[in-house]
C-alpha cells in the first residue's frame, strides 16, 4: 500500500481548520489526524500548561520570599527602634546591586522614604496604585527605572504609634528567564514525543489499511484478467466487500450472457426473413425484385454491422476471462481441415510456457477463425499456424501467426483491407465482414493486426494479443 504523505498531510491540515474529517478525506489521513493529530494538540496544551504552572509557582515563591524579607525589615525596625538606622539590611547581595530589581524602602505615613536598600540609591520605585487589602497588604508587577520587571510587595505597619510603608521588590525578569528555559526544554522533549507519536500513528494507519491495499490488488488482478474472482484472506470488515465485488462480477457476467443470447436470438430472427426476401427477389427480374435485392443487401449489412457492434459492446465489460490459445487453435485447425479437405493446415504446437490469451475464448476464436478462414480461402494447398510469446518493454504479448501459400497481398492492398469494409475481390464468397470483426475485436483488446508477405508465398497475418499469466485464477 502506498500512502501519499504530502496529500494526506494537506488533507489533514485542511482538517485542522474544519476539526472533523469529512467522508472525502483519505482514510489514512483520517486515522492519522484522529489519533496522532489530537495527541499532538494535547501535547502542545500540556507544554503550555506546564509552563504556566511553573511560572505561577516561581511567582508565588518570589512573593513568599518578598514577604519574608518584608518581615525581616519589620523585625529590624523593632530591634533597632529607628527605621532610618543604617543597621537595617537584608542579607542578600542582590539588594546591594543597582538595577538588580531587588529593592526595599521604608517610608513614613507621609510617604517620605526614611530608609532604602543600597541597590535603590539614586532612583525611585514606581508607586503601587492598587488599594490595600484587609491585612494592609498589596502587591503589583511593575517595571523599575531600568526597565527591569519587578514584583512589588507593600505592607503598612504601625509600630509605637507610627505608621510605616515597607516595600520589598524582587526581579520578575529572573523568573521569566527560568520560565523561558523551562519552556524551551519542555517543548524540545514534548516535540520529540510528538514526532514519535506521529510516526507511530502513520505506521498504525499503514498497517490498519494494508488489507484495503490487498483488496485493491486482488480486484486489479480480476481486471487484468489474471483472476476471475476476488480471492484472499480479508479481515471481517472487508470480507463482505470482497464477497459483494464477486457477486457483482457474477451478475455482470450473467447480464452479458443474457445480452449475448438476446443478440443471438435477434440475429436468428432477422436473418431468416432476410434470406427469404433475398432469395425470392433474386429470381424476379422486375423493378420490385431489383429493389428488394438492393435493399435486403443493405439491411443484411446493417444487421451484421450492428450485431457485431452490439456483441463488441457487450464484451468490453467482461473481466477476468482467459483462454488457452493452443486448445483454441487446435480446434480451429481441425474445423478448417474438415471444411477444406483439399488444404493442409499445419499447426506447430507451441511449448507449454506459451502464455494464455487474456479475454473471452469465443473472441479469440472469432479473431483467429476469421483469419484462418481467409487463409484457407486463398491458399493453394497449405496453411500454417504458429504461436509464440513476444516480450516487449511494457508487457508480454501473445503472437499468433497465420500464413498461406496463396497470392498474398501487396503492402498497398494490405493497407487497404485493414480499413473498414473494404474488400479486394467482391467475387470471393463471404460477407466481407470477417476482417472487420477481427479489427474491432483486436482494438477492443488493445492488440494489433499486421498483414505481411509469408515465406510460404502468400499472406502472413500477425495477430498480437494481450496475454494472461499462466496458472492463475
Amino acid at each position, binding site marked *: 500500500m502506498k500512502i501519499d504523505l504530502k496529500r494526506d498531510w494537506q488533507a489533514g491540515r485542511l482538517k485542522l481548520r474544519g476539526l472533523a474529517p469529512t467522508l472525502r478525506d483519505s482514510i489514512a489521513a483520517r486515522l492519522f489526524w484522529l489519533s496522532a493529530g489530537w495527541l499532538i494538540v494535547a501535547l502542545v496544551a500540556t507544554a503550555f500548561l506546564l509552563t504556566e504552572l511553573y511560572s505561577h509557582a516561581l511567582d508565588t515563591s518570589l512573593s513568599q520570599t518578598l514577604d519574608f524579607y518584608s518581615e525581616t525589615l519589620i523585625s529590624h525596625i523593632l530591634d533597632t527602634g529607628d527605621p532610618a538606622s543604617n543597621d537595617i539590611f537584608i542579607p542578600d547581595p542582590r539588594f546591594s546591586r543597582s538595577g538588580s530589581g531587588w529593592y526595599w524602602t521604608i517610608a513614613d505615613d507621609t510617604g517620605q522614604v526614611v530608609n532604602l536598600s543600597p541597590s535603590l540609591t539614586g532612583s525611585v520605585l514606581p508607586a503601587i496604585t492598587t488599594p490595600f487589602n484587609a491585612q494592609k497588604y498589596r502587591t503589583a508587577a511593575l517595571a523599575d527605572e531600568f526597565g527591569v520587571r519587578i514584583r512589588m510587595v507593600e505592607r503598612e505597619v504601625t509600630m509605637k504609634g507610627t505608621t510605616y510603608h515597607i516595600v520589598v521588590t524582587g526581579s520578575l525578569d529572573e523568573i521569566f528567564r527560568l520560565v523561558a528555559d523551562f519552556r524551551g526544554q519542555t517543548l524540545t522533549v514534548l516535540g520529540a514525543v510528538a514526532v514519535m507519536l506521529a510516526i507511530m500513528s502513520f505506521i498504525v494507519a499503514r498497517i490498519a489499511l494494508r488489507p484495503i491495499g490487498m483488496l485493491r490488488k486482488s480486484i486489479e488482478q480480476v481486471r487484468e484478467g489474471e483472476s476471475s474472482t476476488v480471492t484472499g484472506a480479508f479481515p471481517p470488515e472487508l470480507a463482505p466487500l470482497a464477497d459483494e465485488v464477486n457477486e457483482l462480477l457474477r451478475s455482470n457476467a450473467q447480464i452479458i450472457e443474457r445480452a449475448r443470447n438476446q443478440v*443471438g436470438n435477434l*440475429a436468428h430472427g432477422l436473418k431468416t426473413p432476410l*434470406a427469404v426476401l433475398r*432469395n425470392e427477389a433474386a429470381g424476379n427480374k422486375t423493378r420490385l425484385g431489383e429493389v428488394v435485392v438492393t435493399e*435486403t443487401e443493405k439491411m443484411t449489412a446493417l444487421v451484421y454491422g450492428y450485431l457485431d457492434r452490439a*456483441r463488441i459492446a457487450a464484451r468490453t465489460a467482461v473481466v477476468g476471462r482467459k483462454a488457452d490459445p493452443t486448445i483454441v487453435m487446435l*480446434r480451429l485447425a481441425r474445423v478448417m481441415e474438415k471444411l477444406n479437405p483439399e488444404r493442409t493446415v499445419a499447426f506447430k504446437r507451441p511449448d507449454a510456457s506459451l502464455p494464455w490469451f487474456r479475454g473471452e475464448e*469465443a473472441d479469440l476464436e472469432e479473431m483467429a477463425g476469421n483469419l484462418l478462414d481467409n487463409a484457407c480461402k486463398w491458399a493453394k494447398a497449405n496453411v500454417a499456424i504458429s504461436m509464440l510469446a513476444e516480450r516487449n518493454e511494457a508487457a508480454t504479448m501473445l503472437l499468433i501467426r497465420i500464413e498461406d501459400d496463396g497470392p498474398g497481398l501487396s503492402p498497398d492492398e494490405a493497407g487497404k483491407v485493414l480499413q473498414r469494409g473494404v474488400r479486394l475481390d467482391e467475387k470471393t464468397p463471404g460477407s466481407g465482414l470477417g476482417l472487420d470483426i477481427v479489427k474491432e475485436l483486436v482494438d477492443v483488446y488493445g492488440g494489433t493486426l499486421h498483414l505481411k508477405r509469408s515465406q510460404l508465398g502468400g499472406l502472413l497475418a500477425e495477430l498480437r494479443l494481450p496475454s494472461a499469466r499462466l496458472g492463475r485464477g
Partner: protein
Amino acid sequence: MRVLVVEDDANLNRQIKEALTDAGYAVDVAFDGEEGHFLGDTEPYDAVVLDIGLPQMDGLSVLEEWRRAGKTMPVLLLTARDRWSDKVQGIDAGADDYVAKPFHMEEILARIRALVRRAAGHASNEITAGSVRLDVKAGKVTVDGQSVKLTSHELRLLSYLMHHKGEVVSRTELTEHLYDQDFDRDSNTIEVFVGRLRKKLPEECIQTVRGLGYQILED
C-alpha cells in the same frame, strides 16, 4: 442425387427446394427437427441441408443423433448464429459445412455440389468416364467434346452413376437416390431412363450387371 432440406421457415424451405430441384436433385423437405430426424434416419440421402434453429428438436441434436446412429451423409448446416464458437460446435456435432444466413442460393448449391462430390471422392467439378464428361456445376454432359442434351431425370441418373463410378449400383438404390419420397416408385422407370441414356451416350458407357444393377466402369 437425393437431398433432404430441414428448415422451419416455410418460404425458405420452398426456395431451397426449388433451387435444388432446378439443379437436378430429388428433394425431400421437413419443417421441424423430429420430422427431419426421422427422414434422415430412414431414407438414404446424398446430402442434407439442416437448419440449426428448429422446433421440436434443434438441428445440432438431430445431427448428433444421426452421427450416433452411424449415418454418414454430408450435412450442410444453415445457421444464423455465425460466431466461430457456433461453427465449431456445428462441425464438432458432425456437420461437413455451414452457410450463414442470409445467403445467396448459389452458395447453397455450390456447397451441396462440393459435399456430394467430396463424399464420392471426386476432387473436381468434372467427372469423366471414357469419352463422357459430366460438368457437375453446370449440369452439362459432353461426349468427345460434343454437347449432349439430357432431360433432368436422365441427368440425375447419369450423375449418380458417374459419382459412383466403378461401383455396381442397384435399381433400388437408384430409385431411392433419384426420386423424392412422394414419387411413385416403379423400378421399371429406371430401365426406361437407362435405355434412353444408352441411346444418347456411347453404348458401352453404362454396363448392366445381371441381377445386381448398373455400373459405369473406371477408366
